[in-house]
């Protein structure tokens, strides 16, 4: 699988994501700087987590207006898979590539802990490594992960199977509506999620439930 990781100033889980992609696919991803206007020919584009532009203004708002976003939009329209994790998810919603918004956590505090996720739709390249309804462990670490969409949007994405993951077993850490932890675009080739699967891929992490997300993509590309 060929992948690219897009880096904006202030992102800080880019190294985690690069390590995870390298370990799982065996090939280091291409690293693309936010001021570039082209993305190499890859199967997967990842926008990792962090605090692009310090989350000043609104999380993801400034990065969503960077030069590279047009290239990402083009690739997404052509069916290239795009994954946004945490700040990457926020950037994709700010860029209009994913529905809904991510508001400040209901607790108003940053939260870093392990949660449980239910796989809500495994019929996509991202989630095919899991069973439908499977409950997995995954850590979260964010200040603005409270997913919200208006009633009409919510009904539409629920109806279209655009919800990828839900917080399970009462572990919703941020007040997200319908316990939504991750959503697809309509075509299911763009996924945004708040939890960090890249931080749960090996024994040193105390588990590897996050691995199937990447390995599922790998099988697809192979």
């Amino acid at each position, binding site marked *: 699988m060929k992948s690219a990781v897009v880096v904006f100033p202030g992102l800080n889980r880019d190294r985690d994501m690069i390590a995870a992609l390298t370990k799982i696919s065996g090939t280091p991803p291409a690293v693309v700087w936010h001021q570039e206007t082209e993305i190499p020919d890859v199967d997967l584009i990842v926008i990792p987590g962090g605090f692009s532009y310090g989350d000043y203004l609104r999380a993801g708002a400034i990065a969503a207006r960077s030069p590279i976003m047009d290239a990402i939009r083009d690739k997404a329209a052509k069916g290239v898979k795009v994954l946004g994790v945490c700040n990457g998810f926020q950037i994709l919603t700010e860029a209009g590539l994913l529905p809904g918004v991510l508001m400040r956590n209901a607790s108003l505090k940053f939260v870093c802990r392990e949660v449980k996720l239910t796989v809500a739709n495994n019929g996509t390249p991202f989630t095919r490594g899991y069973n439908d309804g499977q409950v997995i462990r995954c850590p979260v670490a964010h200040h603005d992960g409270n997913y919200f969409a208006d009633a009409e949007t919510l009904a539409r994405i629920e109806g279209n199977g655009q919800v990828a993951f839900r917080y399970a077993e009462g572990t919703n850490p941020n007040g997200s509506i319908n316990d939504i932890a991750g959503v697809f675009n309509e075509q299911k080739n763009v996924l945004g999620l708040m939890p960090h699967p890249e931080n749960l891929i090996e024994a040193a*992490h105390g588990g590897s439930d996050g691995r199937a997300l990447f390995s599922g993509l790998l099988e697809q590309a192979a």
Partner: protein
Amino acid sequence: MTFENNIAITPQLVADHGLKPEEYDKIVALIGREPTYTELGIFSAMWNEHCSYKSSKKWLRTLPTSGSHVIQGPGENAGVVDIGDGQAVVFKMESHNHPSYIEPYQGAATGVGGILRDVFTMGARPIAAMNALRFGAPEHEKTKHLVSGVVAGVGGYGNSFGVPTVGGEVEFDERYNGNILVNAFAAGLADTDKIFYSRAEGVGLPVVYLGAKTGRDGVGGATMASAEFGDDIEEKRPTVQVGDPFTEKRLLEACLELMATGAVIAIQDMGAAGLTCSAVEMGAKGDLGVELDLDKVPVREEAMTPYEMMLSESQERMLMVLHPEKETEARAIFEKWALDFATVGHTTDDLRFCVRWHGEEVANLPIKELGDEAPEYDRPWVEPARPVPLAVDDIPQMDVADALLELIGGHQLSSRRWVYEQYDTLIQGNSLQRPGGDAGVVRVEGHTNKALAFSSDVTPRYCEADPFEGGKQAVAECWRNLTATGADPLAATDNLNFGNPERPEIMGQLVHAIKGIGEACSVLEFPIVSGNVSLYNETNGRGILPTPTIGGVGLVPDWSRMATIGFAAENQPILLVGAPPSWGTHLAQSIYMRDLFGRKDGPPPPVDLAHEKKVGDFVRKLIRDGRVTAVHDLSDGGLAAGLAEMALASGIGARVNQLEDRDPIPVFFGEDQGRYLVTVPLDPQGEAFHELLNDAAEIGIFAPWIGSTGGTELVLGNARPIPVAELREAHEGWFPQFMAGTID
């Protein structure tokens, strides 16, 4: 604009700069004339306690600072210790106490920012952070506000910067009501052949300003931090800096990229006393003069005076001496990261610190004397009174189960989850042990099995009762916590927080604590490689508890053989390694006495350093040999608390015997030092078990089999069984309820 540099220097102005009349006389004698206003500011910045260590230097020199692994001891931005394979760990702890009390969010945030900068200035990428926080009594009106602000500030900066917070301390005591402590620790990883220092080399080379622009924030901060507080504290808010972790993160990446180009000759972050301190240090260390042109300094406010520019403590700035032929390459890196890059001066051969502004020379001072000739005091001190031991029959009684539940659900021992869940503890993907265990452990990236362990420790009530034993205990506990994970303790950083050193009894505490630290560091071969002193932690004449925080680093050679505190399985024998014959004896200064009976009398538990070393080395070997399944050292709350914490970390209960003819209170709540709880995967009737006990006995270590793991209850001798679920409710309950205001 008008700026009058040559104003009359009145005694009041001198006092406002935190300088004593005799210190001012020394300045006049040194330079042979009255200083200008800017020069007075520069002297005040360099000669305050925070920057000059003038009260503590004499005693700090006595600390052991070298060892086979030490690459760089105190005197640089951070200590550097070899961890093998061409790599080094770079670390330091530093206080941000005064600012955090005045403005908790920004004070704590910039404390974290400052210590991270100290680490990456040396070429190291930060890999772990810890924070030792001490607040006033829970019931004090300001405490909740300060906890909330400090924790948010620590998280706000560290999370955004992207360093995992893997450990720390949070404690409450009324003696911190007017002076909280925020001690921030950071560690980074560097290649041993790519460590960067602050000593400038070469004449006529460009001095380059990097990072964020200079504003008026923090003007006079270091001087403020060297004074006591009065009731005018709210007026000091403008002396607190404002943090910008986004800029710091870019500065980190830009500096590491820059260092990789070979462009850097010397580099120094701008911390306390900003431009002044960094320029003087680089020049003085390299026996060079420095000339600065303030018109070149990037500023973010209009009409800044030279005085303000020299004393600003705006954050996220660095000063560097650059190889001139690399300037284009270097500038491009900073432009890529959208950071300022400005040549603001050059090195000279005249040993003068010369500052120009609007074509005028506003300061011209001898550079060596600014630093080296700072006043140094041998302040008078008195021997601390030695507390009288408690009478042997002075054992206030309480039901053992009730006592444990109250302590584990009290402010001292309750879970810090409310705090550490606001910190990113797993970013970078290397956190092997997160907060809640004996030490934080982080895998060394790129290495198959090496990891580093970090712990921060001090027991201020012990230090108050006996500063010498308290100093020893702080080091010993840190060493013990690292050992309990299986790490070899390598070296430590000390953050000495005390009251006003001009009072002989406070100076006596400082002197004795340093002596105790020194003795423990020597015996345990655990040198001090960096540190920070914070004095004048007093409000309206009342000092804090003496708090010499020790931040230690250990090396785990193979993390697959690392120990954790949770009981691993049912029916495993529990050994109390290093115990005295009756398991526990020392109740004076225990939290049992303090928190359940309000008793603060008597001496702290003594630390027998030879015993400490012997027991620790034995436990570490058991871990390395794979003979144990869980390890936890004993500290606050003694045996009962230790067992409870092991049960809480796993959900598995335990049944522990009652010693015949012994009062269970000192057995379960005594805080005797040098003890570890270990569990073993062995049949107590089997040969291997007896072999293990024999191994301990042969080297004179008593390691009684005190009980076994299993079930869902913790049973302490004849006390009523406590369901682990009930322990958990108490343990997890206090902090969130306290912050929600539902308990007093």
